[in-house]
């Protein structure tokens, strides 16, 4: 990892933007209170905080999506107020959204110029847009054929296209909202380089992220928010990731990962042999033991998710699967759940929860059979089950009548876990258990996972966050391009070892 030094004089650069005393109220809840912050040219200013701390609201105010209830924004010393995102763009403030907002059926060039097509007379000038798009991506240090249809691109490539599209607007301040949430370490490195290049051009960068080591690596200044209030702004050099975590949570996060005593070798619960998921995974074989937490590492696209989806019957697959000594073959989730194998999707919002339905409906969706009395669903027992789940999984919600989509990411994950645990599964497969979740909730989810294993359940954790796998797993299998290429455990559970296996490159030798 090379860390290009921050421009030494960034702190004496004139402030591009100064916000003072920003507050925002929705209804009667105050989500932001008295936030002040300065963005200077040529500096990366990170905003960190737990989910619900107000980061997104602050960014939306600065990008013109929301108007502040109180407070003032100045640019170059003069007060400004943005009537909308377009107005903010006219002032040179652009936002790179966390979600990929591209039209999947259009080409890279068409997406980059969407809504601001170049024209020659009455017709669009495809030639100019194609070369403009190519250049915009080359400027970001990548290469993508501008005629490629966006749906064929990887997530990282799509993000590059999205950034290129945003940077086409003349800009002085770029806001990145959790840009690395779905990137692999490799892709994250590439993105951080892009951000450094942007900074080097004298642009001010606001950078929101949960990933503290990455914040430490890229940021010149760090502003911490907690519960909608400003905790403080610091020079990044003064803070270690642990300090940032402490400031965010408001207490010491001494230990993120729970204690796990090395489990004695127990009987095999799930044995997989020669398992193929056509197009995604080939000849997978592994054994999962009782009370064990088994990790699956690998780059995005290595086939981990697809392998798991194949195992539980969500995708066509073939191969030998033995559960408790009996050969099984799951053709749909119904059969795998019935056999005691539960899969929690990495895509919480798209595949895990009904966001527009309330917590009760979500909690019992997979286990409704348990709540039937006569012909009817017993709503009283459902309500009791929800009370229990809220207590057992510490789901933080003001009211039980809330919709699942209104919960924070961490609480959604807890609800999803609670939903699947209603079925009392023996094998629990959790895909990206903490993606997009703040540190306080992460710690809790690790604790829950460890507790499930302690109860004698067998757990598979699929994750792109290596520290997390190393922190909670007994063993880790590494996948590369559809195959399980190695296993690490004990002393060998290091990031280097995993990266070597995942990339097929001897990382130690390169560094």
């Amino acid at each position, binding site marked *: 990892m090379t860390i290009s030094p921050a421009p030494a004089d960034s702190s004496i650069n004139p402030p591009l933007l100064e916000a003072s005393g920003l507050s925002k109220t*929705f*209804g*009667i*809840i105050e989500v932001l209170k008295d936030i002040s912050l300065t963005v200077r040219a040529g500096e990366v200013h990170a905003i960190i905080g737990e989910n619900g701390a107000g980061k997104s609201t602050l960014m939306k105010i600065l990008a013109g999506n929301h108007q502040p209830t109180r407070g003032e924004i100045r640019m170059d010393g003069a007060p400004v107020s943005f009537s909308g995102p377009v107005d903010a763009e006219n002032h040179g403030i652009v936002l790179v959204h966390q979600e990929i907002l591209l039209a999947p059926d259009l080409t890279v060039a068409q997406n980059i110029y969407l809504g601001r097509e170049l024209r020659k007379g009455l017709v669009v000038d495809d030639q100019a847009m194609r070369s403009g798009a190519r250049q915009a991506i080359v400027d970001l240090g990548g290469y993508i054929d501008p005629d490629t249809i966006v749906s064929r691109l990887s997530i990282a490539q799509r993000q590059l296209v999205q950034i290129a599209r945003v940077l086409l607007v003349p800009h002085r301040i770029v806001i990145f909202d959790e840009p690395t949430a779905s990137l692999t370490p490799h892709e994250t490195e590439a993105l951080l380089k892009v951000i450094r290049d942007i900074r080097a051009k004298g642009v001010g960068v606001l950078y929101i992220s949960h990933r503290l080591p990455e914040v430490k690596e890229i940021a010149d200044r760090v502003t911490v928010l907690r519960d909608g209030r400003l905790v403080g702004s610091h020079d990044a050099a003064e803070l270690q990731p642990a300090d940032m975590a402490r400031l965010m949570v408001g207490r010491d996060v001494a230990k993120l990962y729970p204690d796990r005593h090395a489990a004695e070798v127990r009987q095999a619960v799930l044995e997989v042999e020669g398992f193929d998921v056509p197009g995604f995974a080939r000849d997978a074989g592994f054994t999962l033991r009782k009370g064990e937490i088994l990790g699956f590492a690998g780059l995005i696209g290595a086939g981990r998710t697809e392998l798991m989806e194949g195992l539980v019957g*969500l995708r066509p697959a073939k191969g030998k699967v033995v559960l408790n000594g009996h050969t099984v073959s799951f053709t*749909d*989730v*119904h059969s*795998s*759940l*019935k056999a005691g194998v539960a*899969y929690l*999707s990495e*895509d919480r919002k*798209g*595949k*895990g*929860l*009904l*966001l*527009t*339905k*309330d917590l009760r*409906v979500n909690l019992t*969706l*997979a286990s*409704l*059979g348990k709540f*039937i009395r006569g*012909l*009817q*669903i017993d709503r009283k027992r459902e309500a009791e089950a929800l*009370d229990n789940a*809220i*207590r057992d999984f*510490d789901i*933080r*919600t*003001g*009211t*039980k*009548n*809330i*919709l699942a989509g*209104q919960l924070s990411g961490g609480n959604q994950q807890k609800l999803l876990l609670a*939903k699947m645990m209603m079925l009392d599964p023996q094998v629990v497969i959790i895909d990206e258990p903490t993606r997009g979740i703040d540190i306080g909730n992460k710690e809790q989810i690790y604790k829950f996972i460890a507790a499930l294993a302690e109860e004698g359940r067998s757990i598979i954790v699929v994750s792109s966050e290596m520290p997390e796998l190393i922190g909670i797993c007994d063993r880790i299998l590494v996948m590369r391009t559809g195959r399980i290429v190695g296993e690490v455990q004990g002393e060998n559970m290091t990031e280097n070892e995993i990266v070597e296996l995942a990339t097929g490159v001897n990382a130690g030798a390169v560094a």
Partner: protein
Amino acid sequence: MSAATTDTAKIPKTSRDWDMAAIAPFVALALLLVLGYFANPNFVSVANLTNVITRSAFIAIIALGATYVISSGGLDLSVGAMVAFVASLMILFMNTGAIGDPMLMLVAAMLVALGLGAACGLANGLITTVGKIEPFIATLGTMGIYRGLTTWLSQGGSITVRDRELQQLYRPVYFGDVFGVPIPIIVIFATAALAAFVLYRTRYGRHLIAVGSNEEVARYSGISVQKVRTIAYIVQGLCVAVAVIIYVPRLGSTSATTGILWELQAITAVVVGGTALRGGVGRIWGTVCGAFILEIVGNIMLLSNFVSEYLIGAIQGAIIIIAMLVQRSLMRK
């Protein structure tokens, strides 16, 4: 239990806000009744209202089935043609005289209608789920098939119940009443009560809403999306059959043009009733209310002198657009 005491008002958008959309059609119905009174005081007479509601029965009952299909994320354009098709076969069955006893024959004919309705629904369901064809296209196709078969069966004309005795026996199913309440009105409310029970209280109903709300979440929760959707189409077919059972005794005959544009009226009733066309929300009583609104608007236009009754189609078209605008503005809050 952490903070159950925090009041609901603090959360900007809870499930409760949907209630606004749920009561809107009933408010509209009440306003229409007031408007009707001013247009013509005779409008609110019991006789007139009973009459109007009786006439709304076909659309109301078909729309109950459409509520299921639409809530599951589907659409059925074939219902109007299905009415004609099922009615023709039902009458043709009665005309075979296969069963001597008229009462027995009538019961058998009703069962035949229900069986045919279920089969037509099953066909729609399988084409969309197993055949993986867009519901719009699939049911556009079956609409043509059912309508075409009807035209062929009737040779472009009409099909009439030949047996006088059978006709006399059957008549009360549309024209009769129980304690002064016309039978079609009883059928509307009985069907709606059953539909509401299944949708709101049973496992199938919950699964249906889950499938319409997010198919993937349903699949990952172990729900068979295809089965749930197919059953919704069968429910639609059964509702069509029930509508046919009360339709046939009205005229004692059916023709190639029976039920034309009923699919649009049914969908309008569903949408006016507050069910979301994208699926995931089903409002049974709203649908009944929507069907009443459509019929009442027509009735008011007939009774009043300011608007020509030839404009009924245009007014109904305007109603669906207004209903959508109102729904959306209520949801934004």
